[in-house]
């Protein structure tokens, strides 16, 4: 219980820190943000109107207070371009991103677990080096190249899937594959090394000595223990997944929060940029909080103390 409270508190502190950094990002812009948004040819009246709309005419401390109290009410300001509340824009785009991320995670796990188990059981064989070679390739291939290559083969040449957009399940396949590949590669390596460690344990020898067949030993006793560190890694890697979603969504014109962010950057719609960055980062903090808590539940051996 003590752990729970401390972990929640530390997550809260991190979220406040993230919000602070996101707030000050707009003040990092060299020169006047109003000039950057409107360009040099804008009329003075328009400048003043935008300055007031962004709240930039108030002292920074007041702006920061407004920003935080807005956050508490889930009010992220209004889009400069469309005038719509940023929060509602995000609510509209978030489900597509979550769907994409979930599909990518599912693909990654479906590929990584069998691949890692096979590599560990056949350690040192050609099968092992093939699996690890695939993993190295998966880590090294950038998603903004894998995406166009998949489009080229499966959409343009074979005509199996739509080129882009979000209509039906078929349109989800290529983006999820693009986003999931590097995660699959990282996880496969982790499953392999973690299982190799577990296979050496005494309880594995006991399980074999009981006369259980090798498959039961590996899958029931070995993998269950080997997956514990993998859970932590999944949590940490979800950050890379959410970041990668920004690029993947751009490649496939997938109408998620990443595409919203990139479009907002192009339009210099800074409130939307801030809102997107804040939402993605907060999601990541919450996911890691969730992973830590799950970890405590599934592995009673671990004494949960505050980590630094």
């Amino acid at each position: 219980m003590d752990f729970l409270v401390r972990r929640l508190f530390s997550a809260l502190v991190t979220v406040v820190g993230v919000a602070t950094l996101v707030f000050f990002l707009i003040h990092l812009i060299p020169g006047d943000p109003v000039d950057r948004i409107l360009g040099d040819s804008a009329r003075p009246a328009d400048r003043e109107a935008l300055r007031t709309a962004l709240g930039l005419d108030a002292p920074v401390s007041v702006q920061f207070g407004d920003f935080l109290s807005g956050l508490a009410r889930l009010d992220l300001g209004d889009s400069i371009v469309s005038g719509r509340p940023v929060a509602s824009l995000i609510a509209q785009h978030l489900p597509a991103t979550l769907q994409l991320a979930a599909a990518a995670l599912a693909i990654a796990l479906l590929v990584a677990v069998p691949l890692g188990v096979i590599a560990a059981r056949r350690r040192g064989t050609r099968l092992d080096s093939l699996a690890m070679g695939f993993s190295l390739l998966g880590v090294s291939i950038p998603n903004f190249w894998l995406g166009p290559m998949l489009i080229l083969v499966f959409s343009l040449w074979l005509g199996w899937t739509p080129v882009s957009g979000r209509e039906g399940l078929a349109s989800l396949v290529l983006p999820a594959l693009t986003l999931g590949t590097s995660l699959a590669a990282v996880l496969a390596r982790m499953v392999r090394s973690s299982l190799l460690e577990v296979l050496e344990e005494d309880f594995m020898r006991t399980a074999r000595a009981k006369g259980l067949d090798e498959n039961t030993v590996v899958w029931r006793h070995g993998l269950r223990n080997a997956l514990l560190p993998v859970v932590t890694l999944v949590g940490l890697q979800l950050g890379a997944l959410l970041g990668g979603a920004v690029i993947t969504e751009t490649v496939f014109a997938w109408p998620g929060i990443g595409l919203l962010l990139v479009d907002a950057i192009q339009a210099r719609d800074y409130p939307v940029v801030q809102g997107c960055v804040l939402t993605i980062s907060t999601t990541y903090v919450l996911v890691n909080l969730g992973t830590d808590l799950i970890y405590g539940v599934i592995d009673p051996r671990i004494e949960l103390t505050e980590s630094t």
Partner: protein
Amino acid sequence: MTRWLPIAVLAVWAGAALVGPLLPLEPSRVTLDALLQGPSPGLWLGGDELGRPVLDRLVAGARVSFFVAVSVVVLSGITGTLLGATAAYLGGRVDSTLGRIVDVFLAFPGILLAIALSALLGPGVFNLVVALSLVGWVGYARLARAQVLSIRQRDHVLAAEALGAGRARIVFRHLIPLAVAPLLVEATFGVAAVIVAEAGLSFLGLGAQPPTASWGSMIREGSRYMLVAPHLVIAPGMAILLVVLAVNLTGDRLQDRFGRRTGRAGS
């Protein structure tokens, strides 16, 4: 044979970056005859949507990717190591403050913070280096901190303290040299990460601006002509993939030599 392959790839990459400006290349020469033309004997990798030679642009792009990678890794590696090592040695409030800052930075998916920073700073190679360095130092700081925490009570450090050595001397002469091996491994993987990040940001239009050729922006522009001229996307992508593979293989090899990496995963 395979031992030397990664090194050969990296040598070609660095060579193209360093010697490229001396070669008779014309990455910005517009030739209408070569418009979207496929590879041919006179034009090894074909022409792009303006008829510019893809091979020349590839060599020019190697320069951007090499200099961004080297600058970012050197800048963020040195800054991160100094901050992390100093904080761990001094301990107390300095250390806990740095810990909080690191936590906040780590709460952003790396590429996301880089996207936000370079969007706000404005496009361009210099701003890209600034944005990626601001994101990159955290990993080195964390690793250097963990390393120094594990060695700061060793006898030679205590002996130096007893002899009256100053704090700066202890950090530079007695702590950092012992933490260098894992930091080098981290920096090697860092090179791969920066190459991909640079290309990714350029792909989003946030990196090198036209007419400067960058591998990422070549993929961005080429993907519009994928059906008629797939080589525009395949060529720069293969270049990135080969270099990143070579860097990662080198990193794996260093890691095997120096022992396990302690960074990244963990609490």
